[in-house]
Each structure stands twice: as structure tokens, then as C-alpha cells.
């Protein structure tokens, strides 16, 4: 568990925002919504994996 995950998520966020803007300005609005959606989904999957890992460690530590 280290800090790089935070940087990864922040980087994904900024990249999706930039890509969305670029695609929107170049006229491809539908693709830009898809791109931002993909970014959100990737980050959601990472967060959910982290939460699952947290709950597993809690279960082992508190001897459920």
C-alpha cells in the first residue's frame, strides 16, 4: 500500500478530462463522452479492488 495509487487515479482523472476536451473541440462529442466514461469506469474498478482488499484484511485481522 503506497502513495502511487493516488497519483495513478489523479493522472487518470486529468487525462480523461484532457481527452474529453480535445475530442469535444474536434467535434466528436459522442466519442468524448465515451472516453470520459471509460476513465470513470477504470478508476471505479481500481477503487473497488482496493475496498475489497481492505475488507479482506479487516476480516483476517479481526478474526471474523
Amino acid at each position, binding site marked *: 500500500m503506497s502513495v502511487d495509487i493516488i497519483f495513478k487515479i*489523479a493522472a487518470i*482523472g486529468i487525462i480523461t478530462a484532457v481527452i474529453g476536451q480535445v475530442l469535444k473541440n474536434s467535434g466528436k462529442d459522442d466519442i468524448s463522452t465515451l472516453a470520459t466514461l471509460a476513465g470513470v469506469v477504470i478508476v471505479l474498478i481500481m477503487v473497488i479492488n482496493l475496498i475489497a482488499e481492505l475488507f479482506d*484484511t479487516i476480516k483476517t485481522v479481526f478474526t471474523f
Partner: protein
Amino acid sequence: MDPIYRIIAVALVTCLATIILKPVRSDFAIMVSVVGGIIILFMLVRYVSGIFDVFMQIFSTTNLSSSLYKLVFKIIAVGYLIEFSASICSDTGNASLGDKVLLGGKIIILVMALPIITNILNIVTELLPK
């Protein structure tokens, strides 16, 4: 004294990342703060398990039934999780949801604590002179 610096470092980094992300993408900002909380919890879990080992030795000397202190551990775990999720709820803005989660946690802890209370009452009634 090293772990406290790591926790503070992670917290500060998370705050900065959230501030940077808020104008750009507000939903990512919330996710970054959730991940920062998870990382700090991971660091703390190691110490909590150390505390529990000491508790287990102490409890094993008393002749109390082992189920009691397992129950105490479960209650601490519930408190741990409830605080984590309630703070996320209030972080994302819906404080009322966080309060409801807190209320639910308290009720669940009370329900789990009932056997302990009945156990104590039995011990007390045995002590009273007949």
C-alpha cells in the same frame, strides 16, 4: 515514530490531489480521497493486529470464555468499518446518509453487545448473597 510521518504524508498528498482534481473532475476528487482513506486504514491495520495479540495473551490468562473477547474484536471491527463508510458518505456531501450509517452501526454494536451484558448480569447475580 516513522509510521506517523507516513500517515501524515499520505493524508497531505491525498488532500493536494483532491484539490487539484476538484475543478477538473469533481467525481475523481472524491475517489482520490476515498483511496487515501483506504491507504491510511491499511497502515493502521498492522498496529491494530499487534494490539489484539497482546489482548489475546491477557484474555487467555483469565478463565473467561474465549467467545467474549472475540465478540469485543468484532465490535471494534464494526466500529472501524462504520466510521470509514460514514466519513466517506459525509465527504461526498450527503451528511444525512453518513448519520444514518452511524446510527445503524450503533444499533448493530448494541445488538452484538447484548450477550456481554447478560454475561455480566449473571456474574453479578452469582456474587450476591442468596
